[in-house]
């Protein structure tokens, strides 16, 4: 099976900071990949390269064998959806949020989108102010799904959620990957979450790759140990 994303000698610098330093790595298709690292390790920057919210200072990012720089960024972003760390519900109702992704969605499809994100259809008329953190993040997931993406980029989506809401969101996204064939790249620094989710693991430290492969191998352990000691901050 080919690569979902491949990073070929990618460096990303901005405002005098090198977020990624000569990174070469591949993320496989058809699996839930976890990108792990401490704060400031470059994991979110790596994710933002995948939908061209950032572009590399040097090197190339490939998506299913095509260089991202040759792709239309607007079409790419509809194929590669993203859910951010902080739930960002737009002003207006949940219905308006989903229509911001695709204005042609029918009421039935809007309901289906919410159902996939495990929210009741009644949420359509609610506004962001009426939602809990977990519900708001599910609305953001449903909104990303409204573009019918092939890939979901999850940038520490449970960071601001309580444990029960986190576990529930993890289960929803795992089901999307398993049952709907959506490739998922999930960024986290939470070891327990890595254990629960990772089918492929990429660990970054100070903008460099320290592990890339299957989780649970003897080589993965020292890379993950660095997360608990905070090395790489």
């Amino acid at each position, binding site marked *: 099976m080919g690569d979902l994303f491949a990073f070929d000698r990618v460096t990303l610098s*901005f*405002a005098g900071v090198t977020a990624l330093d000569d990174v070469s790595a591949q993320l496989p298709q058809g699996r839930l990949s976890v990108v792990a690292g401490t704060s400031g390790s470059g994991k979110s920057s790596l994710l933002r390269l995948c*939908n*061209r*919210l*950032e*572009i590399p200072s040097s090197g190339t990012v490939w998506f299913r064998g095509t260089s991202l720089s040759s792709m239309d*960024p*607007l*079409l790419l*972003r*509809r194929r590669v*959806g*993203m859910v*951010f760390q*902080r739930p*960002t519900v*737009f*002003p207006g109702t949940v219905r308006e949020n989903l229509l*911001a*992704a695709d204005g042609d969605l029918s009421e039935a499809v809007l309901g289906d989108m919410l159902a996939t994100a495990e929210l009741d259809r009644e949420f359509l008329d609610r506004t962001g102010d009426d939602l809990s953190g977990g519900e708001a993040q599910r609305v*953001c997931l449903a*909104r*990303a799904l*409204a*573009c019918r993406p092939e890939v979901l980029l999850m940038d520490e989506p449970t960071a601001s959620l309580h444990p029960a809401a986190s576990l529930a969101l993890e289960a929803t996204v795992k089901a999307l990957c398993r049952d709907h064939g959506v490739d998922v790249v999930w960024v986290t620094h939470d070891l327990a979450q890595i254990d629960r989710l990772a089918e492929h693991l990429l660990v970054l430290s100070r903008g460099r790759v320290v592990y890339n492969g299957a989780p649970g191998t003897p080589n993965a352990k020292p890379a993950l140990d660095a997360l608990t000691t905070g090395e790489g901050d």
Partner: protein
Amino acid sequence: MGHGDVNALGLVTSLILVAVALAVSLGQQLRLERDLIWSVIRAFAQLIVMGFVLAWLLEPGRSTAYSWLWVAGMVAFAAWTVRSRAPEIPGLFSIAMVALTAATVVTMGVIFGLGVFPMEARAIVPLGGMMIGNSLGGTVVAARRVADELADKRAEVEARLALGQSSREAGKPYVRSAIKTALTPRIESTKAVGLVFLPGAMTGLILAGVNPIDAVLVQAAIMYLILGTVATTSVVIGIGSLRQLFTPDHRLRRLARRAS
């Protein structure tokens, strides 16, 4: 003072309310004293210079080309002011120059083309100043608000971009809000004309002995032109600023947050 003459005593008397403002600032620890004193001195110096320039421009036989040159200088200064108020927006000086020049050419073309006023120095400079001065407030607010909104709501803007929205689409709600803020004071003052205040041009014409109805018609024409100019320049600056704050491949540039 009966015929518009102000002596030194009259000028000093007019500063009484500024003294009140200073006292309020000191009493409430607003720390506006320096700005207040500086603005009073600077305005006086600028008006004195303006007075001498106008006197020179109005000398019999002086070519109106000098008046137009003065207006061009006002446009450049206004564009520079807009740029200095929102320095994080690349290329803002050029956008402001184009917007203000186009607006000035159109409005002055209407005023002189339709013969509202004769095309002479005593009309060119004050009317140019009126158009550019009124536009300046709106354009500064529009540029500043677009930059602030996009910096403050970066997460929201990027969430929109991540849905495949173009930079224009993603920035639309914030530009709309910025333009609305920029235009509201002008719209409100247009609504209040005649009820709350009598505009300067009309007052001047009536004091100069022009029939009040004729003065009202002239004032209405000027007011509509000002409203149109402020609206046009604010929209151009708002949309232009938005374009400058995104890259051509629809990424939001990094913006420094200004300390309030």
